C-alpha cells in the first residue's frame, strides 16, 4: 500500500483528468454523436425497410388473393354464360320447332281447306254434270220411250202395279 501511494503521481492524475475530459468532450462532439446518430438513423431505416417489405409482401398476397377471387368469379360467370347460352339455344330450337309445327299445321289446314273447297266445287260440278247428263239421258230415254206406245203403256202398267203395292 505504501509503495502504491508512493507511486501515485498527482501530476499524472491531473494530466489524465485533463486529457480524459478533453477526449470525452471532443470525441463526444465530433465522433460519438454523429456515429451513434448515424447508427440510429440506419437502424431506423432498416426497420422501416423491413416493415415496408413486410407490408409489400402482405399487399402482394392480398393482390394474389384478389386475383384468384377475380379469376374464380370470371370462371363462374363464364360457366353461367355458357349455361345460359346453351339454354337459350335449346329454347330457340324448341321455339323454332314449335313455330315450324304451327306453320306446318296451318299449311296443312289451309291445304285441307283448299282440297275441301276444291272437292266441293268438283262435287258441285260433278253433280251438275250428272244432273245434266241424267236429264239428257232422261230426255233421250223419255224420247225413246215415248216413241213406242206399247212400251209406254207397259210402263204405266208396271208403275201402276208397283204403286198399288205401296
Amino acid at each position, binding site marked *: 500500500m505504501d509503495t502504491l501511494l508512493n507511486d501515485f503521481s*498527482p*501530476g499524472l492524475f491531473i*494530466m*489524465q483528468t485533463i486529457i480524459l475530459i478533453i*477526449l470525452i468532450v471532443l*470525441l463526444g462532439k465530433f465522433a460519438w454523436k454523429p*456515429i*451513434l446518430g448515424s447508427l440510429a438513423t440506419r437502424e431506423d*431505416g432498416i426497420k422501416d425497410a423491413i416493415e415496408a417489405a413486410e407490408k409489400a409482401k402482405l399487399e402482394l398476397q392480398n393482390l394474389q388473393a384478389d386475383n384468384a377471387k377475380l379469376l374464380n368469379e370470371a370462371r363462374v360467370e363464364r360457366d353461367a354464360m355458357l349455361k345460359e347460352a346453351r339454354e337459350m339455344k335449346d329454347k330457340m330450337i324448341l321455339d323454332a320447332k314449335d313455330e315450324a309445327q304451327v306453320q306446318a299445321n296451318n299449311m296443312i289446314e289451309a291445304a285441307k281447306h283448299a282440297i275441301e273447297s276444291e272437292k266441293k266445287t268438283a262435287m258441285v260440278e260433278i253433280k251438275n254434270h250428272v244432273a245434266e247428263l241424267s236429264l239428257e239421258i232422261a230426255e233421250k230415254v223419255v224420247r225413246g220411250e215415248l216413241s213406242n206406245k206399247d212400251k209406254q203403256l207397259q210402263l204405266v202398267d208396271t208403275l201402276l202395279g208397283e204403286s198399288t203395292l205401296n
Partner: protein
Amino acid sequence: MVAKKSIKFIAILVLLMTTVSTFANEGGEDNQHHEKGNKVDTPEEIKEYIAHHLKDSHDFHLFSNNETGTHVSFPLPVIVWSSDGLRMFMSSEFHHDDNGHVIVEKDGVKLTKIHSKIYELEAGAEAVAFDEHHHAENAHKVLDLSITKSVFGMLIAGILMFLGFGALAKGYKKGPIPTGVGRVLEPLVLYVRDEIARPNIGEKKYMKFMPFLLTVFFFIWILNLLGLTPLGFNVTGQIAVTACLAIFTMIIYLTNGSKDFWMHTLWMPGVPYILRPILAVIELIGFVIIKPFSLLVRLFANMTAGHFVVMSLIALVILMKEAFGPVASTGVSLILALFITVIEILVAFLQAFIFTMLSSLFIGMAVEEHDHH
C-alpha cells in the same frame, strides 16, 4: 468458443493473481549495486529493471547499452510546478540520471530526478542527501505535470481515437455503410452500445452515458494494447491513471443517481429503523470507496501483473543461459513469452470490457427507477 474463452479467462486470472504477489514484494529496494558499465543479468537487477519499466518515466527510452553507455531514447518535456512557479525544460538535461546525482537549476529552482520522480532541493542545498532508507532528506516532491511517457501514450491513444472515429463519423456522411477503418470500428461501437450500455443502464437512459463509456472503453483498450508493443508503455498500469478513470465513473454515477437510488442508499425502505443508518453507511462506503477502489485496483493490478509476467519470461533468456545454454533458453523464453502475450491481448480487451461493463452496471444501479412503491 465460449467455453474456451471462459477457461482461458479463469486460467489467466489465477495466473495473474499469483504473479501480483511476486511483484508486490519488490520495490523500495536499494539499487546501489547497479553500477554503470554492468549488464542487467542478475535476478535483482532484472527485478529492478522491470520495476523501473513499470513506473512512469520522463524520457522515451527504447534501449541502451550499459557497456558503452549509449542510450537510445528521446527526451520528453518536463513541466513542474515548483515552489517558485512553473518550470519547463527537456528531460535530456538529466542525462538519464535517475538517482539524484544530476541537478538541474532553472531560474533559482534546483531540480533532480530520483526513481522517476522530480524532486526540488531545499533552499541552500547543493546535492541530495539520502538517509539510510535511500529517501531524500533535503528535497521534496513537486507537482509534476510533465509530458511523461504515460501522458505521451495517452496523447497517442487520443490521436488514434480521433483519427479512427473521426474517419468513422465522416464515413457516415458518404453513405450508411462505413468504409476502411470504420468497418472494424463500427462493430466495436455497436458492441459497447448493445452488449454493455443498453442491458445494464436501460433503454431509456443509456444514450446520455454513451460518450463516457465509449471513450473509456477505447481509451483503456488502446492503451492496454499499446502496452503490449515493444515501445513499453505502461499507462493503464499507473495507479494515477486507473484512479482517475474510476473517480470519473464514481462522479458520474453519484451525480446521476435517481431519487430511488438515494432513497435506497440512505434510507432503505422495508428495514427496521435502527438498522437504516448502519445500512446507509455501508452502502455509502460501498458506492464511494469500495466500488471505485475495486475498479481502479483491478485494472492497475491486471496490467502491471501482465507486464511483469511478460518481462519476467523475456528475462528467462538471461536467467536460464547458464543452465541450458543460449539456444534452449531463448527458445523456452520465446515460446512462453509468446503464449503469455497472446493471452495478454485477450486480457487487454477483457479489462477494457470489464471496466466499461462495471461502470455501466454501477451507473445502471444509480439511474434505475423502481416502480414498486
